[in-house]
């Protein structure tokens, strides 16, 4: 092997290893890993199963909220959510029909919501304003209409 090639490949491999170390450190030590909740639910009995029998916004602590949310073509339930600035909100979600995506534009909130699986993602809303929530996985003919808003006051 050529000397320069050896240097190039050693550097390349080194960068990839450093990259993996950083990704691993952020994911496991700093708790920044991607949404990966493991709980399940019968997708045909979502309405009868706790906690999804009563979707809504629940206060869980000092400026901490949990939103129990169901997604179905083509809406989020509950919609038009209001929380105070600085609130830490955990979204607990499942789908009642097909695969949906839950994205809050302008934040890092982005998670797949699949039938049969309960997905969780947490975000702290520091900046007041109107946040656009949209479905980012194609879910049918009205997919482009599936959106709602989170108002942070």
């Amino acid at each position, binding site marked *: 092997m050529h000397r320069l*090639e050896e240097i*190039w*490949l050693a550097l*390349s*491999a080194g960068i*990839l290893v450093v*990259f*993996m170390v950083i*990704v691993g450190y*952020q*994911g*496991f030590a700093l708790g*920044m*890993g*991607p*949404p*990966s*909740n*493991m709980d*399940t639910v*019968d*997708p*045909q009995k979502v309405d009868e199963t706790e906690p999804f029998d009563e979707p809504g916004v629940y206060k869980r602590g000092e400026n901490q909220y949990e939103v129990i949310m169901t997604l179905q*073509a083509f809406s989020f339930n509950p919609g038009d959510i209001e929380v105070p600035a600085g609130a830490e909100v955990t979204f607990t979600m499942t789908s009642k*029909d*097909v*695969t949906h*995506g839950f*994205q809050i*534009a*302008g934040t*890092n*909130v*982005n*998670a*797949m*919501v*699949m*039938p*049969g*699986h*309960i*997905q969780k993602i947490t975000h702290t809303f520091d900046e007041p304003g*109107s*946040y*656009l929530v*949209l*479905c*980012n*996985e*194609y*879910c*049918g*003919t*009205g*997919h*482009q*209409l599936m*959106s709602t*808003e989170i108002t942070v006051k």
Partner: protein
Amino acid sequence: MAKPLRDIIYDDPKKMFGLNQEDARIAKSYLSVAFITLLIGGILGLLQGLQRAGLMELPAWLNYYQVLTAHGILLILIFTAAFTIGYLYSGFSHTIGGLLPKVRKLAWTGFGLILIGVVLVVATILANEASVLYTFYPPMAASPVFYIGLVFIVLGIWANCFGVFINYNHWRKNHKGQVTPLFAFFTMGVFVLWFFGSLGVTYEVLTLIPWSLGWKETINVMVSRTLFWSFGHTLVNIWYVVASSAWYVALPKIVGGRLFSDKLARVVVILLVILNIPGGFHHQIIDPGITETVKFLHVFMSVSIAFPSLMTAFAMFAVLERAGRRHGGRGLFGWFKKLPWGDVRFLAPMIAMIAFIPGGAGGLINTSNQINQVIHNTLWVVGHFHITVGVSVVLTFFGICYWLIPFISKRKLTLQMNKLGIIQTITWTVGMILMSGSQHLVGLLGDPRRTSYTTYGDHETALSWIPYEYVMGIGATLLLLGVIIQVYAVFNMMFFAPKGETEFPIGESEDDESPTPLWTERWSLWIILMLMVVAMAYVIPIVDFVVNGPPGSPPIKTW
């Protein structure tokens, strides 16, 4: 008595293909299908681009998601598959001295099967019975005819896989102690990946057929999705191996240089074959039901694919620099100017390779765990695969046409055609910079992919995306212009260009290169290693989905 095939292959391998009109006919048929598909897919692409920007309304009988499904399947599956088979079968036949008659039969069988499949799939999409997009995630259920069509397409591709396996082994049996020609080695790598990479999705489709017919009540959504991506991303890397076959084998000859290293090229193919299939998991980084530990393992597996690509980057620049210096280039960068920029056979793949630098970097971003959350399912991803597939792969394919098609049709590349090719390459490059560039930017702002024109009730965030979508529309317009020029060039060179002999460029090794070791030919070992890597990647999550999974989902039609 005629000489036995083996002797002909030995004496004058290059003659075989030129003489052999039957192999040329296979290649021409596949390439014709490829470029007709490209034209239709390109028109659909423009319709989407304009609809998405709100510049055009589609008629009631053809909605955005039908167009998107057809655009995806036609271009991602049919165009690339038909081009790959046409191109690799010609080069394979050329380098090993002609296809065996039974292999030709397999290629024609495959051709018929793929056509039947395409007709079934396109008819269901047009009837609005399969607006499920290229990924057809259940529990969204298309008409069973759609899935049956997909099975035909896969069977057609498999027929071609078996053809290559048979001919490859036949050649090796008759050439004991020799390594296969480099081009044939690439061909083998592509078809091995194609066969093993499509096993998972084939199983998925076979479970979807009884489910969509109502014979089976529910389907395991996560298993289906995972099996799909085991194929979905492997396919991407199949194209990449196809494109790099031209970079490694043909490009050195075109620039008047030599191969960098025959052995290194083979090691790259072997690594891509072994490492590829788990790469698809990074499409599921923000899925529920997969632990963070398993995801981290898959981030590592995806990232490892970057390594052979970095080897390729080194090799390509080495080839180009040596060739440039051989032609009198001096100083640190003087060689760069000495490259044949006015030759479309060089310009197109060169831009393709340059595009792979941002494309590959974008790929690393997509695969990197928490950063994936920022761009997942936004237009960033669409921008990413339009720069990788749309430029790195497709522009290489376009460049290949300018020597491959005159070669198989015994015609010449004229100066005017070369000029048209340069115009085509520039049109395509500018179109892609505009489209893919604006998609990357607006994706970072959150604009979702796979969504028809919407302002989300005039929400200010969504309104801020519209200007970028206009730029996408302009890019798409240039791209369709590029498609039209390319399709014209292809059929002109196939049927109307002046008769003559054109060379199939095959780079030669440097004079002092040591012979390639025979161990590179141990395909059974590479396949076993590949299956081990696949097992490491998939056994734990799939068992988990099945054992700990929720009750399944019934078929649902939401369009």
